[in-house]
């Protein structure tokens, strides 16, 4: 049997590997997407004091430590049955909004942007941030650096450090902000609103204004009808820091909305022996393998998913952008339910709408009269037991679940990490790309590489939250093997 190996992040880095097997007719028999890494946090966090978890679990991911810091602090609050003061929650959410601005900016300009702005057919060597800047103007590069710098400065003001923040503890925060810091954060928030609108303008002009790109977004090759997951507030508007988890069916019916502590009634993780990563799926629907549709428990948790599960955005400018998104891509519902967008490339657009929401929300939080209040801690009085904390990480719904003894020392830990939610959808996108571009043993070389690369990028994968590919091109290598396992051809780009 012929065999094709694709190393998306390179074999030796070892963070993702694809094996495609062909049948005797040269058609795709199967595609395997392997995650070859494990570090074992669920084991070695046992025995640690629960108040350390927000800093220990930061080290799961240096790209989104803020997400782990917040999910962990919320789980630790729950372990102690303590409700932090309002100001503490506002500060956590303010830090988190600044993080979203930074993270989504990095993704759009450095990772996702090149596919559209430079163009999927451009030579690989130009499809990077420098290519983006050549198209939109070098001065934008300065703004991207400024957005990242300012975002990290806000994270340091509230969290103490730019990477791996230190201030969220059970019951609240260790540290508040001064009026001077508040004013600076408000200024950065207002700047970020303008920057987000400018970025949406670029998307409008360069992507939506181009019929070929629009056609690509709407094409079947990048479409999957799965369930969707995301956090919503009491009005069913999307929220990153808090709320209930909502599930939308592929037909636009709300299947249910649950409190994070009930996650085990809704989600289970399927195991395969050929990868270190598990495949989460909707328990009530069941694991049917890597397939689309309402009968398959596969779901997706991304910016696109969060828009699909929400009735709208909680801030005015983002709400207008949200309406435009659906009016453009899903003018009417497919079957009487909520209008949904199943076109996975639209995730890039959804990410920019979230960028705008995060910036608007930053200003709302920074201008809240209580944000500088010194009341930032509630000392727990109840015996610690068990707790769940959930936030929306940029790459999907993130859940920490802790059990402790009566001293607050961990006895068990369960983690459902952002990117993991999308393991099955990603594997499906890869198989779909392979099936449409490999026929009778003939591989459309550059096309396959591009398709796999673009299918990956829209999810912004961050495997096991272990390592993250940014901001540049993804090196891809494809080895085609004959039935004896000998390499008969190697294709590559960016490596």
């Amino acid at each position, binding site marked *: *049997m012929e*065999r094709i190996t694709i190393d998306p992040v*390179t*074999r*030796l*880095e*070892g963070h993702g590997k694809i094996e495609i*097997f062909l049948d005797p007719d040269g058609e795709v*028999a*199967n595609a*395997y997407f392997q995650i*070859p*890494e*494990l*570090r*074992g946090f669920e084991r*070695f*966090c*046992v*025995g*640690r*004091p629960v*108040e*350390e978890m927000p800093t220990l679990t930061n*080290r799961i*991911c*240096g790209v989104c430590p803020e997400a782990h810091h917040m999910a962990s602090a919320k789980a630790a609050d729950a372990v102690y049955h303590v409700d932090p003061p309002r100001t503490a929650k506002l500060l956590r959410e303010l830090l988190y909004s600044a993080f979203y601005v930074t993270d989504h900016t990095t993704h759009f300009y450095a990772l996702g942007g090149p596919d559209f702005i430079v163009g999927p057919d451009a030579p690989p060597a130009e499809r990077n941030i420098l290519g983006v800047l050549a198209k939109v103007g070098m001065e934008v590069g300065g703004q991207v*650096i400024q957005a*990242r*710098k300012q975002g990290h400065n806000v994270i340091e003001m509230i969290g103490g450090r*730019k*990477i*791996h923040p230190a*201030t969220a503890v059970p*019951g609240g925060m*260790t540290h508040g902000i001064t009026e001077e810091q508040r004013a600076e954060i408000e200024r950065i928030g207002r700047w970020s609103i303008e920057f987000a609108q400018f970025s949406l303008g670029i998307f409008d002009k360069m992507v939506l204004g181009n019929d070929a790109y629009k056609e690509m977004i709407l094409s079947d090759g990048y479409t999957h009808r799965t369930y969707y997951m995301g956090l919503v507030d009491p009005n069913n508007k999307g929220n990153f820091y808090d709320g209930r988890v909502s599930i939308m069916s592929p037909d636009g019916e709300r299947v249910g909305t649950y409190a994070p502590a009930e*996650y085990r009634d809704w*989600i289970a*993780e399927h*195991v*395969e*022996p*050929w990868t*270190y990563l*598990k495949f*989460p799926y909707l*328990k009530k629907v069941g694991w049917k393998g890597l397939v689309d549709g309402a009968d398959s428990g596969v779901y997706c948790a991304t910016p696109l998913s969060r828009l699909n599960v929400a009735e709208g955005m909680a801030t005015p400018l983002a709400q207008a952008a949200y309406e435009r998104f659906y009016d453009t891509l899903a003018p009417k519902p497919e079957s009487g339910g909520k209008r949904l967008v199943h076109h996975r490339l639209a995730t890039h657009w959804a990410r920019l709408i979230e960028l705008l929401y995060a910036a608007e929300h930053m200003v709302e939080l920074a201008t809240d009269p209580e944000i500088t209040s010194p009341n930032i*801690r509630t*000392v727990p009085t109840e015996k610690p037991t068990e707790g769940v904390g959930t936030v929306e990480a940029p790459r999907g719904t993130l859940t920490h679940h802790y059990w402790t003894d009566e001293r*607050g*020392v961990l006895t068990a830990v369960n983690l*459902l990490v952002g990117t993991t939610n999308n393991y099955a959808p990603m594997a499906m996108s890869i198989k779909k790309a392979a099936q449409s571009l490999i026929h009778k043993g003939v591989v459309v070389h550059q096309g396959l590489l591009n398709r796999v690369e673009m299918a990956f990028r829209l999810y912004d994968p*961050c495997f096991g939250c*272990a*390592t*993250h590919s*940014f*901001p540049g091109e993804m090196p891809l290598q494809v080895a085609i093997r004959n039935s004896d*396992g000998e390499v008969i051809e190697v294709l590559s780009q960016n*490596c």
Partner: protein
Amino acid sequence: MSPTAGSTGGANATKPKLAIFGAASCGGCDVAIVNIHEHIVDVANAFEIVLWPTVMDGKYSDIETMADGEITITLVSGSMRTDETVHLSKLLRRKSKFMVAFGSCASEGCIPGLANLSSRKQIIDTAFSTTSTDNPDGIRPIWECEVPEGILHLPEFEPVLRTLDQVVEVDYTIPGCPPESNQIWAALEAVVKALNGTGPLPPKGSVLGAGDSTVCDECARKRDVKKINRFVRIQQVAGFDPEICLLEQGLPCNGPATRNGCGALCPAVSAPCIGCYGAAEGVIDYGARLMSAYASVVEATTPEEIDKVLDGIPDPVGQFYRFSLANSLLRSGRSAWQNDGE
């Protein structure tokens, strides 16, 4: 461009080669390097970057065909967790003049080094039998797995997590989890100057991008000689006096044993130093130093008083070896884990 960049400019062929490699890591070290912001341009001008997989394209096959010692300097972040990362670290060592353990994982194992308290089997069993895992057949990852279409390979999870210097010879260390970006730039600038001949080459074994004292030395909090009769856990009190040493207020702070260089950022926001910059200059075993520092502030004589003190440190191994277990003296016990009955 800056004078630094100009002075080392010229054709690629004359530039020293730089490789940046992440083994088992969280990616925070890479983000910290990107966060030197504009200075990234200076780095790109001063070096020919031959490998930095998380940020730009690089060709591993080029590394394999390079002459030994052809790469001037390689920064390795992350720990040695699978046979693949060990293999690549050895390859890069052979091809590099200077090998740098970059960040806590590479230099001392970091938080994931706490995995060495468990056997490989326990770690894998836990991950594949959590409360939400649907695994009635008890499936575990198989390093050579037969599927209907052929064989799939996974890198082997090693019995213990190792630091870079437990696998290859290391020339320099840049500590921190992650190293602070201003310190990264300071260290790289020093290297550039040394390569230019405008500065001294740091002696082999040097710690770069950090101080030679302790976090306490750069902490703004006031320290007396006050003794304490109990430790408190951070959630047990509503807050701390912003002016006074956290340890003297009873919070177990790792400042006295930890190398300075971070700017004492955590104590400044009323969070204890957790020790991410590793052992202070001259300290052989981090935990032993911290224990003696704590002993010097504790006042307890009766068994009851001693118990009360110990209650404040519910996880001694984590408190004293949070970042440094993998390269601590304790790791002499690691052979006990190497055959875990699989």
